[in-house]
């Protein structure tokens, strides 16, 4: 078994009356890319800050590489953080920002060594030659990379990233997702990223940890979370899903929109479906590679269907107001706790 690089053991954090984090256990493996996913205010940043050492848990312990670091201040923990708004030092050049961590060592490394390390780190984030600039002269994406270089140059046991892409515009965000993933592979440092954006979490991570109101509700690979959510909350937060009344009280049946088959009539639906209902098209949104329909059925109410472009060859497209048939296989429906 690989050793956990960083671990929360029964950690709770209380701010006055607010319970920000409730009795959490989390263990991050060496070299993995783990995301903490949850809506705003669910305690993600607080969890991260307890690992970095900016907050101390009210209860429980934090372990880094097997050592209990509860109560140890941030400057004596071998982890580094990329702050939400980067927190680059405005009075220092890009290179001096990047070597800041190295310069805190005693004895301080010689300046030739610092310069070489800065060059190497800036090269790693594709900012070669910008070392002499001031940080506020750089674009948002470049500042982000300086923040990454400044943290990674120290070879931390874990790199903590707090919503690192939130401040970037859409296009840059998509680019940085790839870049973060590649960077993590290249340097082999454990990444722990916090985000409220499910697409971000699913696309980059080896494992995702879903939080809700201070509690961890499920941990698993993106595929596991998507295919086998353990509650309505996770199914709803990780991807989209339709929820129908479950077989018993306190349960729901969840069916992913892309698992639903559409046809002009029930007869034209594929064989072997567990459920098939007539329905009416309420809305149609063309997204390019797929079309999204909102349907209404007398028996099941409203639900979403995502129909890939390729299907249109077989079943055609439908107009608003059309009567259609929808159905799904038995294994597409999951019975989940309704919470």
């Amino acid at each position: 078994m690989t050793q956990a690089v960083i671990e929360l053991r029964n950690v709770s954090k209380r701010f006055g009356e607010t319970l920000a984090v409730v009795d959490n256990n989390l263990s991050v493996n060496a070299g993995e890319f783990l995301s903490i996913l949850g809506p705003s205010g669910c305690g993600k940043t607080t969890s991260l800050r307890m690992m970095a050492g900016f907050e101390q848990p009210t209860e429980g312990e934090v372990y880094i590489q097997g050592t209990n670091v509860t109560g140890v201040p941030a400057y004596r923990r071998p982890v580094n953080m990329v702050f939400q708004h980067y927190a680059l030092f405005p009075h220092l050049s890009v290179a001096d920002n990047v070597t800041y961590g190295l310069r805190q060592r005693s004895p301080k490394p010689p300046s030739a060594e610092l310069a070489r390390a800065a060059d190497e780190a800036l090269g790693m984030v594709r900012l070669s030659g910008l070392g002499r600039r001031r940080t506020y002269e750089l674009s948002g994406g470049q500042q982000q990379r300086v923040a990454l270089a400044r943290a990674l140059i120290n070879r931390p046991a874990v790199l903590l990233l707090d919503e690192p892409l939130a401040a970037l515009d859409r296009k840059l965000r998509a680019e940085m997702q790839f870049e973060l993933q590649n960077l993590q592979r290249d340097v082999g440092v454990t990444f722990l990223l916090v985000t409220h954006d499910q697409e971000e979490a699913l696309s980059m991570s080896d494992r995702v940890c879903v939080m809700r109101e201070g509690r961890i509700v499920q941990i698993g690979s993106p595929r596991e979370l998507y295919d086998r959510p353990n509650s309505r909350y996770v199914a709803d937060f990780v991807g989209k899903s339709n929820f129908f009344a479950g077989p018993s009280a306190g349960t729901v049946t969840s069916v992913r929109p892309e698992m639903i088959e559409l046809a002009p009539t029930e007869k034209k639906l594929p064989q072997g479906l567990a459920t098939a209902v007539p329905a009416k098209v309420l809305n149609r949104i063309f997204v390019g590679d797929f079309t999204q329909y909102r349907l209404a059925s007398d028996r099941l109410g409203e639900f979403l269907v995502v129909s890939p472009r390729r299907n249109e060859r077989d079943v055609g497209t439908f107009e608003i107001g059309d009567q259609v048939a929808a159905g799904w296989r038995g294994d597409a429906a999951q019975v989940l706790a309704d919470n």
Partner: protein
Amino acid sequence: MRIYASLIYIFLYAPIALIVALSFNAGKQSMVWTGFSVEWYGKAFSNPLITEALGTSVMIALATAVLSAIFGTMAALGLERTKGWLRIVFDALIYIAIMVPGIVIGISSLITFVTIFDVVNPALEALFNLRLRMGMWSVIATHVLFNIAVVALMVRARLQGMDRSLVEASEDLYATPMGTFRQVVLPLLAPSILAGALLAFTFSFEDFIIAFFVAGPDVTLPIYVFSAIRRGVTPEINAIGTVVLLTSLLLLLIAQWILQRGNKQA
């Protein structure tokens, strides 16, 4: 509206402009223009009374600037962590120190010094054959008193505008609290500290009222001017006035420039 404003400005600045203009007057008569000359500047700066007073004023202003910068910064840093009623009390004290008229500060400081001397001088005299008396140091002490508030206000404004995550980033990058203070907090506060020190210098350099009460036998430049005027305004006085004015103006402009540059960076 514009005319009205212009009139006010003329009313405010005409006397000052007049003094500056007359300081370049060639004639002996201070109020009759007879030609351009810088002769009075030469006269003023070769008058030993004036150069000595100037020296005293510069010393006082320098000491005030340095001490106010140190204590004012410490006050601002201390106040940042203070919450609740203690904070309110200290805030009020800071504003009071700035708003109280100079004459009140002067008189109350005078009374305080005299009272302290009455108590400690007999003992000092018996033990060390020493007597405390007022002079440059008491002017410095009093100037520092209210200029601490000036610096504290400026530094605090800057502190409040400072991104807290910069301090955390520094700690995250292994800097000790002392290291963070030296490498991050102090450099970021430097513009406001420097600007505060320049203001303190200016306020101290041009102060007459407070110095008048607590300077004892020492003569500052404003005190010299005051006593000289009683013998009539000479172009020499105008020259001194112009020098003081331009010095103050220059320092204020520099302070403003430093602050703006600092804000742009942060």
